[in-house]
C-alpha cells in the first residue's frame, strides 16, 4: 500500500511536534523515521496509526484519505516499544485477540495465528505467557499480533530499544526478513542511525518536527542535506570544521586540504568524516593527542589548526600519543555547507 503524507502537522500548545511534513512511501518499502528524542518521529507514527489526530494535513493510504478513519479501521498493525502484550493471556490468545475482536471463529483464528507464528518463528511458544519469553521472543509475538489481521501497513515504535546490543542486531535482521516475506509497507521509528541505515529502504530524518531529508541510506550518508543530517548519521561523528577557499584552494587554519575545487572564494562550514582521511606523508601533519581502539579501527584524536578532529585509521597501524601523522582527505569527501548549513557539494 502506498502512503502519502501531505502537510501533516501536530501542535501541542505552542509547540509544533510535527511541522508541515510531506512524505510518500512506495508499496512494500521499509522506511525508518530517524531523529533525536522529541523530534516528532513517534508523533508522526501515531498519526499514521490514527491514535493521534493531526492538527492539520492529510494521510492517504493508496488513494484513500484515512485522516479521519479510526485506528481499528485503518488496516494497520502497530508494535509498541514495550510490546504491550496482554500479560494474563497466552501467546496464542495474544495473537488471536485482534481476530476474535473482529468476529472470527476461534478455530480459524488459531489457524491464522499459527501461520503467522511460523513466519516470526515462535510457533513452539504458543501456550506460554509473555513473562515466560525473552525480550526478543516477546518482540516477535508483538509483531505476529500486529501482522495476524493482514494489515496493509505495519508501524513499529522503537522496536529494538528494549533489547540488548547483540539481540538488537539479530532482531533488526529478523524485522527485515519478516517485512520482505510478508511484503508489507513498514514504517519504524528509531533514534539509532545505524539501525535505520542498515535495514531501511529509505530514511526520513527529522529534527524539531521538521523533515530534514528523505533518502536512500547510502545517498543520505554521502550527501547529507545539511549539517544536522551530516552530524546525526555516522559513528564516530563527522568532524565539523571551518574552511577558507581562495582560487580553488581549500584550507583549514592554513592546512591545505584540496586544490582546484570549483568553489567561490569565501569562508564556509565543512564536514569531513573520520574515515575520509587517509595517511599521506605529503598531507597536513597532525599531532595525535589521544587514541581509542575500537576493534577494526583506531580512532585518533588530533587537531587541524585549532579545531578538534577525529581520524580513523586501520587498527594494525603502529602509532603513539604525541606522534605526528600526515593525512589527506579522499577525493569528493569534503562536504561543504553554505551559511544556512545546507549542503553545497562534495569537494
Amino acid at each position, binding site marked *: 500500500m502506498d502512503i502519502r503524507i501531505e502537510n501533516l502537522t501536530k501542535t501541542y500548545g505552542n509547540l509544533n511536534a510535527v511541522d508541515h511534513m510531506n512524505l510518500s512511501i512506495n508499496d512494500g518499502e521499509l522506511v525508518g523515521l530517524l531523529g533525536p528524542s522529541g523530534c516528532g518521529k513517534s508523533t508522526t507514527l501515531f498519526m499514521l496509526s490514527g*491514535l493521534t489526530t493531526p492538527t492539520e494535513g492529510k494521510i492517504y493510504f493508496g488513494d484513500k484519505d484515512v485522516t479521519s478513519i479510526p485506528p481499528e479501521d485503518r488496516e*494497520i498493525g502497530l508494535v509498541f516499544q514495550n*510490546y*504491550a502484550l*496482554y*500479560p494474563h493471556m497466552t501467546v496464542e490468545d495474544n495473537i488471536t*485477540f485482534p481476530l476474535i475482536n473482529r468476529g472470527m471463529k476461534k478455530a480459524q483464528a488459531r489457524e491464522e495465528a499459527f501461520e503467522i507464528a511460523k513466519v516470526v518463528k515462535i510457533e513452539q511458544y504458543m501456550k506460554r505467557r509473555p*513473562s515466560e519469553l525473552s525480550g526478543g521472543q*516477546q518482540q516477535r509475538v508483538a509483531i505476529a*499480533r500486529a501482522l495476524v489481521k493482514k494489515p496493509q501497513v505495519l508501524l513499529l515504535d522503537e522496536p529494538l530499544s528494549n533489547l540488548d546490543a547483540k539481540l538488537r542486531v539479530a532482531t533488526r535482521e529478523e524485522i527485515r526478513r519478516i517485512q520482505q516475506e510478508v511484503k508489507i509497507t513498514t514504517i519504524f521509528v528509531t533514534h539509532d542511525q545505524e539501525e535505520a541505515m542498515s535495514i531501511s529502504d529509505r530514511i526520513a530524518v527529522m529534527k524539531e518536527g521538521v523533515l530534514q531529508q528523505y533518502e536512500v541510506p547510502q545517498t543520505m550518508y554521502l550527501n547529507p542535506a545539511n549539517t544536522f543530517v551530516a552530524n546525526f548519521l555516522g559513528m564516530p561523528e563527522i568532524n565539523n570544521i571551518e574552511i577558507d577557499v581562495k582560487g580553488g584552494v581549500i584550507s583549514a587554519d592554513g592546512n591545505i586540504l584540496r586544490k582546484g575545487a570549483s568553489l567561490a572564494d569565501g569562508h564556509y562550514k565543512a564536514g569531513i568524516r573520520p574515515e575520509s582521511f587517509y595517511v599521506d606523508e605529503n598531507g597536513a601533519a597532525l599531532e595525535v593527542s589521544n587514541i581509542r581502539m575500537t576493534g577494526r579501527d583506531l580512532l585518533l584524536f588530533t587537531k587541524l589548526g585549532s579545531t578538534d578532529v577525529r581520524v580513523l585509521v586501520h587498527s594494525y597501524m603502529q602509532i603513539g600519543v604525541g606522534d605526528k601523522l600526515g593525512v589527506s582527505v579522499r577525493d569528493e569527501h569534503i562536504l561543504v555547507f553554505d551559511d544556512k548549513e545546507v549542503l553545497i557539494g562534495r569537494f
Partner: protein
Amino acid sequence: MKSNRKIANIIAEVLKYVILIAGSVFTILPFVWMISSSLKTPAELVQVPPALFPEVPQWLNYKSAWEAAPFARYLVNTIIVTICTTAGVLVTTVLSAFAFSRLNFPGKKTVFSLFLATLMIPGEMLIITNYETIIKLKWIDSYRAMIVPWISSAFYIYLLTRFFMQVPESLYLAAKVDKCSDFKYMIKIMVPMNKQAIFSIAILNIISSWNAFLWPLLVTNSQEMRVLSNGLVRFQTEAGSSTELIMAASCILVMPIIIIYLFLRKYIIEGVTRSGLKG
C-alpha cells in the same frame, strides 16, 4: 570468636521464633478458647482452675444454640446482604476505577478529589445522615436499607484506580488498534490483569459486611431481618448466662468467613505477573 558469633546467631534465631510463637498463641488463644468453651458443659465453664479442653465435647451445644434462636434465618440474611453489597461494590468500584484511570471527561480530577474527601468524614457522621435518608425513603426494616448504602466505597475506588493506573497506556492503545471497545478492554484486559487487587477488595468487603453490626442494628427491627451479628447480641441477652451456647453461636458466626477466606486466599496468592511488559 567464630563460635561466639554462631551462638549469638542461634540465640537470635531462637528469640525470633519465641516471639513469633508468642504472637500466634496470643492471636489464636481466644479462638481456641471460644471453640473449647462452646463444647463445654456449664459446670466445666465455671470450673477453677479452668480446663483448656472439655472432658467430653458437648456437640449438642451447637444444636441447642441453633434451635434457641432463628440462626438459620440470620445466616440467610447475612449471606444475602454480604453477597449483594460485595457484588455492588465490585461493579461500582471496577467501573469508577476504570473511568478515573482511563477515560477523559470534564471535571475528572475534581470528582476524584471529592471522592477522596469523603474518606475524611468519620463513619459515625455518615451513619446519621444515611439513617435519615433511609427513614425518608421508608426503607426501615428491609434488605435494601442494609445493602444500598454500602454498594460503593470511595476507598476501594481509590485503591483500584491506583492499580488500574499502573497498567501502561500502550496496552489500551494496542487493544484499540485491535478493535477492542472500552468496555471490552475493561472486562478482558484490566479486570483479569488486576484480579489480585479485585479479589482483595472482595475479601475485605465480605469480612466487613459479615461483621457489620451498628448499621443493621439501626435499620432493622423485626427478627426476620436480623443479621448474625445482631442476632448473636440479642441471643446473648435472651439466653442470659448460657455462655456455652453463646460461644457455640459465635463459632457459627465466624466459621463461614474463615472458610471463605481460606478458599479465596489461593486466588490472592496466585496473582498476576506484569513481566510481559518492559520499559
